[in-house]
């Protein structure tokens, strides 16, 4: 059985969150993400969940970390200015291996720039926004259906790996309305909880993996800190080996599972002269451009910008003479593609100002590159 809705991306995100089991939202409303908060303020209490409008964004990030350690799947939603303000606590969540979902509906930036216009300027902030070494997961939806699906996947991945997961949407996808189909058979990952406190280590050094996580109040004596900690969670800040082991594991649990996490979609790449790489809303323009042209052009749609799908990009671009990255910034994921395809001609169509690149603008760029 399934149900159909004609709703906004932001509403689909909220619906996805509730479907995934989110029962706590703390946030500070900001255009163009506000409808996520608005919908959850109305709908969370109906399923026994809680909504808190916080005093600011850093408080919002702190509250969802607390919500998660309290046992509830927790989320916030914001835009670029809010993501900037959350970074300190986002780093804390990576260090404490706290599963949270952070939705960023990107708008014109930097600073407060263009509240009602679309952009993809926060991609590197999702990757490197907080200080130190860590490996985030980020998903970029290109349709209202994907905003629903990817929000659910974000919760599943965050629980699976005990890691903050970003849903990097944009104003176009957040505000546009489309049909979504909601099946009643959706896979939801439940949090792994420890069965007994005997020999339980909340930060156990398990290769490529994570330990089950208790909730405050379950009766486990544990310590949660942003300081470098041992497997029990106790600060151990001067032993180089403790730090090295901890941070390596926090990174490796993502990097060594990339084949399970990374996802791309592609078309016509095998015999394409030019392969277009994009993610989020611009994918819509790319698909139309590729369907419109007689030239040998294929495309790759990146579902998971982080961790970056190196292997898939390499494989799909191996026959192309040129690669064109289309994104709504002046070059962010472009440099990742360039890093992976060292020997190829990688071009950038970076559009800022708030409007989607049009299919014709993309085809003009293909002409310039000289695709046949």
């Amino acid at each position: 059985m399934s149900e159909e809705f004609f709703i906004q991306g932001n509403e689909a995100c909220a619906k996805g969150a509730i479907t995934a089991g989110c029962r706590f939202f703390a946030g500070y409303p900001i255009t163009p993400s506000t409808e996520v908060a608005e919908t959850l303020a109305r709908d969370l209490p109906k399923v026994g969940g809680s909504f808190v409008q916080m005093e600011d964004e850093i408080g919002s990030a702190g509250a969802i970390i607390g919500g998660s350690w309290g046992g509830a799947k927790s989320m916030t939603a914001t835009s670029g200015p809010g993501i900037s303000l959350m970074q300190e606590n986002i780093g804390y969540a990576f260090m404490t291996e706290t599963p949270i979902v952070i939705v960023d509906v990107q708008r014109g930036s930097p600073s407060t720039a263009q509240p009602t216009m679309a952009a993809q300027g926060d991609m590197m902030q999702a990757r490197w926004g907080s200080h130190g070494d860590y490996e985030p997961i980020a998903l970029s939806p290109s349709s209202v259906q994907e905003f629903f699906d990817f929000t659910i996947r974000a919760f599943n991945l965050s629980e699976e790996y005990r890691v903050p997961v970003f849903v990097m949407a944009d104003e176009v996808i957040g505000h546009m309305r489309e049909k979504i189909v909601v099946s009643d058979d959706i896979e939801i990952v439940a949090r792994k909880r420890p069965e007994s406190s005997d020999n339980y280590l909340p930060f156990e050094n398990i290769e490529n993996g994570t330990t089950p996580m208790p909730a405050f109040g379950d009766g486990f004596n544990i310590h949660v800190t942003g300081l470098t900690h041992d497997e029990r969670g106790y600060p151990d800040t001067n032993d180089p080996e403790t730090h090295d082991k901890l941070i390596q594991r926090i990174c490796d649990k993502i990097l060594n599972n990339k084949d399970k996490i990374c996802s791309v979609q592609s078309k016509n790449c095998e015999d394409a002269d030019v392969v277009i790489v994009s993610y989020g809303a611009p994918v819509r323009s790319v698909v139309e451009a590729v369907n419109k042209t007689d030239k040998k052009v294929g495309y790759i749609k990146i579902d998971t910008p982080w961790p970056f799908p190196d292997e898939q990009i390499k494989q799909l671009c191996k026959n192309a003479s040129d690669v064109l990255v289309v994104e709504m910034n002046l070059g962010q994921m472009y440099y990742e593609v360039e890093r992976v395809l060292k020997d190829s001609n990688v071009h950038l169509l970076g559009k800022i100002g708030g409007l989607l690149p049009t299919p014709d603008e993309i085809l003009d760029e293909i002409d310039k590159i000289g695709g046949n």
Partner: protein
Amino acid sequence: MKTEIRIGGFGGQGVILAGIILGKSACLFDGKEAVQTQSYGPEARGGASKCEVVIGDSQIDYPKVQSPDIFVAMSNEALTKYIVDLKDNGTLIVDPGTTDVSDVQDFIDEHNIKVFEAPATKTANDDIGLKIVANIVMVGAITKITEVISKEAAIKAIEASVPKGTEEKNIKAFEAGYNLI
């Protein structure tokens, strides 16, 4: 086959809800595909407001309207600002109470535009006694003139979209708009 529709007016007139109803009718009740997008200023009311809907038989990739087949103007500012994008032989629907078609007569002549006048605001006021249903009156007129959605689908979509308890007034507004032409 794709039909691009743009509705322009000022904030508070409900042009976005009008677009949502068109999209919902097509998607959920006519078995088609539709995407609705919008742009608006930071003001809640009074600023320019624009709503766009693309309706098609198959998946819609690029979601924005590039050159509308149908342009509905509910304010003179929207009429004069957006008329230039309208396709040759396109359809223009205006509310004569809030627009002055003579301002764009040259464009209409040059591009062979089919013009329809639907006095939505006056009909809403006089027939329904509620100025705020002018957008729904306009949906009725759009449905009749363009046949881009079916009447049955429109009625179901209105029932599913308007606040509970106001369905009857809104259906009445739709019928009044449908019968204007």
